């Protein structure tokens, strides 16, 4: 199989509300930054792929505007996934595996949650006959999963709080973090629940942002980057959606994706988990068999910033950036979409 690596990563600062720029205007400088970082121009990009959501953006064909900000002239090879941009990375990776002439690919994602109430908008991802008419908000759905973990005696609300604390502590070294700090878990547990047992600290922030990664193949990657983050394995799987049909203490598809990507049973230095809610972080640790020596979410995970539709791609970028900088040798990146970890992607990245 052809070798493909992430060679660059960039993102906007995670912000509660982007007051100046629209989606396309957010994307353009991030794309310029990643290209400049490796000394490429937009014309060196052989394939471009993005992820976004029309309902999040508030209008149809929302990604088309972003193409108008990329310098797509002469015409480019380009595609788009509706949803999380990590799947755009997957599409680019597949294209590079089977088309030798695609040597460099650009992948980006963007979303502005602040324009609407994502807690409600994302309800539209559910069954439109049986569930959406009741408007079960995303936090409530995650809370049903959290309760299942508590009832099974697998973890406690304190475990959830400690995951939040770990993420915020790690975020202190992330200059682009929206949230960071060193809250006391006991104090967090004194705060009221939003949807019991979940409290504010268990939930991701509302974030506007964009992100981009560059992929390159084989020697081209080595030429452009001193230490490419090679994709050793990449796979995604999905579960049945209905919460009442799933064992919510598990994410079957996360485990299957991890197995297919070769993430199980190998030593990794770091893991970036796209766990919108703290109980999901716990579940993913178990499904991906992450062990003691692995630093989880060195960036602060998505509790420091959640640019929806790009937040999963950011996980890949954060792992790759640490490998590229020589801070880690091997890492696991995870992305998800759908309620309660319904669909999961796992990648194993490694430096040489």
């Amino acid at each position, binding site marked *: 199989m052809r070798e493909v690596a992430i060679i660059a990563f960039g993102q906007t600062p995670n912000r509660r509300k982007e007051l100046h720029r629209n989606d396309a205007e957010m994307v353009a400088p991030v794309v310029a930054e990643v290209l400049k970082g490796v000394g490429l121009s937009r014309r060196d990009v052989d394939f471009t792929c993005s992820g976004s959501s029309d309902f999040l953006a508030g209008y149809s064909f929302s990604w088309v505007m972003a193409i108008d900000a990329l310098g797509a002239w002469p015409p480019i090879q380009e595609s*788009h996934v509706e949803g999380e941009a990590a799947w755009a990375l997957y599409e680019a990776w*597949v294209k590079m595996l089977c088309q030798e002439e695609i040597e460099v690919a650009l992948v980006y994602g963007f979303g502005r949650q602040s324009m609407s109430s994502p807690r409600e908008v994302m309800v539209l991802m559910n069954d439109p006959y049986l569930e959406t008419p009741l408007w079960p908000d995303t936090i409530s759905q995650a809370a049903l999963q959290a309760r299942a973990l508590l009832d099974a005696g697998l973890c406690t609300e304190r475990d959830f709080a400690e995951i939040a604390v770990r993420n915020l502590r790690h975020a202190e070294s992330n200059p682009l973090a929206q949230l960071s700090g060193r809250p006391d878990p006991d104090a967090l547990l004194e705060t009221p629940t939003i949807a019991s047992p979940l409290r504010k600290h268990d939930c991701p922030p509302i974030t506007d942002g964009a992100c981009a990664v560059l992929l390159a193949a084989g020697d081209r990657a080595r030429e452009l980057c001193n230490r490419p983050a090679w994709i050793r394995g990449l796979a995604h799987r999905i579960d049945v*959606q209905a919460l009442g049909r799933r064992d919510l203490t598990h994410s079957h598809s996360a485990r299957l994706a991890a197995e297919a990507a070769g993430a199980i049973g190998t030593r990794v230095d770091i893991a970036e988990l796209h766990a919108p809610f703290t109980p999901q972080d716990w579940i993913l640790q178990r499904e991906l068999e992450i062990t003691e020596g692995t630093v989880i979410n060195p960036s602060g995970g998505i509790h420091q910033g959640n640019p929806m539709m790009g937040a999963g791609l950011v996980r890949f970028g954060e792992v790759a950036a640490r490998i590229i900088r020589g801070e880690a040798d091997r890492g696991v990146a995870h992305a998800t979409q759908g309620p309660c970890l319904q669909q999961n992607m796992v990648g194993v990245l490694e430096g040489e």
Partner: protein
Amino acid sequence: MANRCAVIGIGQTKHTDRRLDVNHVGLVREACNRALEDARLPWKNIDALVIGKAPDTIEGVICPELYMAEALGMAGKPLFRVHTAGSVGGATAIVGTELIGAGLHDKVLVLGWQKQSESDITWALSPNLPFDPPLMAGAGGFFAPHFREYIRRSGAPDHIGIKVAVKDRRHALRNPYAHLHQPSVCFEEIRDTPMLWDPLRYGETCPSSDGACAMVLSSEKFADHGSARPAWIHATEMRSEPTIMPGRDEVNPRAGRDCAAALYKKTGITNPRKEFDCAEIYVAFSWFEPMLAETLGFAEPGEGWKLSDSGATSLEDGGDIPWNCSGGVLSSNPIGASGTLRFAEAALQVRGQAGERQVDGARLALAHALGGASQFFAMWIVGSEKP
């Protein structure tokens, strides 16, 4: 290089304005079941599914493939969603081809669908945004200025658009799955329909349809599994260009010319009109046929209308390069499936499965899907012989 890939199963629904008897799952399963039956494969044997659909605003569900994942046989498997506007059905087939080309899977189901009857298409495609006064009044209004410019440049007579519409609607009568079946359709009937967006008449526009189309793609290992010979995928190509670039040629977009040139280069095609036996081209409004004939190299610039006028693109008239024997987008337009249908109909032709719309002895066919402001192109070439 990439592993060989073939179409071994094809299925579609009867396209219609309102499928009130089925929900989303019922609609897509109908197409998938037929494709699987044609491929002689059970659901369980499918490794992965690639699904394409145009804006989620049409059905009002974000990524509906997620809630349908189990019904699509994908619990525990990879399910992948593509959305590239009108070209999405083509892009979906290309992603499926590449999953096999990359050696990741052996049997991939690709599916395009749309259930337009659940909302209003004009609303879904162009909601009124703040600070943005509405002017265009629908997709036809968006493209009409481009058609007018084409007519001005080429000197094409007014009847070309009518003739193309009649031709595709006549073709549709041979296709049991086509949405519009107008047995009486003739020049006068189309000519006398209201002029909605001058120069575009109502009769020259595509319908709004509910429908789905699925294909089973396979690696070489399973290529002979289907109920007819495989349609080998000889090459695929995609191109995109910006929407609002000053001086962009909307009439003959460079993305389309580049896409065709790259595709033909991969396969050694030098004379598309002569070398292809037929083509399924995304003609959502009549005037796209002469315009795209020029963009895709079937006619010299300014001469596309003569190709349409000559009857060369008509199966009924015994044309040498029939376009849209299925009736095309002008006869059925479930947007997310419209591109998949083009790709699938081309494959049906080279498999010899096209029934009354079959081009005798078709060996090599071109399919094309178009999206956005004539800016997103997806194409493939399929043949009865291994590439």
